[in-house]
């Protein structure tokens, strides 16, 4: 109970729980959409999803500052590629929050001269760019780790052992592919932080891709991906050792 209280006392912790709930509702609505007996439940879930989404928009009002601080911290990194990726990702996130805040002001009625559709698309676009930069950073880190691992002697022994055994597996027809896949899996297994971050970013990617119409998937898939990425977010917040650094 103490751990739960400590987790929820962080502003991010609560936001991630609300996000998970929001996408769980979206997924449930999709799964129950054709069930006539559950119409009442579907309406309740829709109302809950709308309310949580509106509440989260209000709660995001100060978050631009977080991204700007992250940009300042990222400028101090030594690795050039990492510095570029993380800075660009955070700048796009800051722009996304600004668009989001303007949309909130429009929804509440404070600013009426805003074109809701256009700013919604702008927000999705900024979010997409920040996710693409995050994924680029993940791929770069994975490549670096794979190169490092490939040079490791202990790993070379393990690889030779793997290649010599089980010749009836289909992948072995292309031994280079098999070696590559083995190296990739071993790298991801030894560095769970990168693996989790990559999965989270890939899941998140479906949301703006669907909203912008670049890759239209079903509401169910968007809900499922959102739920998975929120759960990974909760996990990394509860266990800081699983969080990717920097």
């Amino acid at each position, binding site marked *: *109970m*103490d751990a*739960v*209280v400590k987790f*929820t*006392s*962080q*502003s*991010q*912790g*609560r936001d991630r729980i*609300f996000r998970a709930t929001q996408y769980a509702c979206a997924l449930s609505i999709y799964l129950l959409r054709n069930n006539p007996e559950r119409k*009442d439940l579907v*309406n*309740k879930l829709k*109302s*809950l999803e709308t*309310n*949580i989404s*509106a*509440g989260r928009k*209000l*709660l995001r009002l*100060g*978050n631009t*500052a*977080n991204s*700007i*601080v992250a940009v300042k911290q990222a400028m101090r990194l030594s690795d050039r590629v990492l510095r570029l990726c993380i800075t660009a990702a955070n700048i796009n996130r800051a722009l996304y929050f600004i668009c989001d805040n303007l949309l909130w002001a429009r929804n*509440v*009625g*404070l600013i009426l001269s805003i074109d809701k559709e256009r700013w919604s698309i702008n927000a999705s676009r900024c979010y997409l760019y920040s996710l693409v930069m995050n994924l680029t950073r993940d791929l770069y880190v994975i490549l670096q780790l794979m190169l490092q691992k490939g040079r490791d002697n202990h790993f070379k022994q393990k690889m030779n052992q793997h290649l010599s055994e089980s010749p009836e597996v289909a992948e072995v027809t292309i031994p280079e592919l098999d070696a590559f896949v083995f190296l990739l899996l071993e790298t991801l297994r030894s560095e769970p932080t990168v693996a989790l971050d990559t999965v989270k970013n890939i899941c998140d990617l479906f949301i703006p891709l669907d909203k912008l119409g670049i890759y239209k998937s079903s509401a169910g898939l968007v809900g499922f991906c959102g739920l998975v990425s929120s759960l990974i977010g909760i996990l990394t917040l509860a266990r800081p050792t699983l969080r990717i650094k920097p």
Partner: protein
Amino acid sequence: MDSWVRFNSQSQAKEKVFRAAQYSCMLLGSTLTKSRAASDLQRIVSDLEAHMSLTRKLLRLGNSVEALQAAKRAIHLSDGVLRLCITIAHLNRAMYFACDNVLWAGKTGIISKLDHHKWSQRSFRYYLFALILNVTRNVYEVCLLLDGEDRCRSTKLSSSPSDVLPDDRLSSSSAVPATSPPALMFARLRRLMGQVGAVLYNNPPLLLDLLKNSCDIFIPLDKLGLYRTGPAFVGTCGLLSSVLSIVTMLHPWLKLKP
């Protein structure tokens, strides 16, 4: 920027900022009604207030657990009166949060048939009890500190009887030849007020907490119909107490302990 990020990362801090904004909207709304401003603007302000109120309810969803934990911690206090006041105040807060969660479920449509008025009154009742206990605790602490000061003064007097303390000399010289009981009582009351003022001035956490609770108490009193003051006064009190809470969060040394 850094300090804002740190402040913002506390879930409580955001809630207090929105509380301040909500009561500002209430105050603004009542001012606009009085000045007969455009109904559009009034509607925007009241919608904003309702939106913030609902979001704060969403943000408070887990707070019963925190209040119960605080009550568990308070049971271990050494002072009996403090233990009683603080524990029961936290238990009342936990009940208030539970009622608040039910109201949120009703407003979002999860619970379809909910008597909003009944549950709202219930939640304000628990809130009022918690505030009364907090004020009792403040008054008790002031009495303890006054007692301590009196004891301190009497030990000083007993250790050096020839040395008359300046205040005593002043009070004795400026004292009205107290022959009539009302004048005597008035002089005593004035001296007591002075002592209370000095005690509070030397204990900013206690002063802030007392001010905060005194401002807060008008909100449930108005909502329960026990002492109707109107939205302008309630808005001002709510805004003031929110600002005081934000100040205590920014400067943790100003928070009253335990």
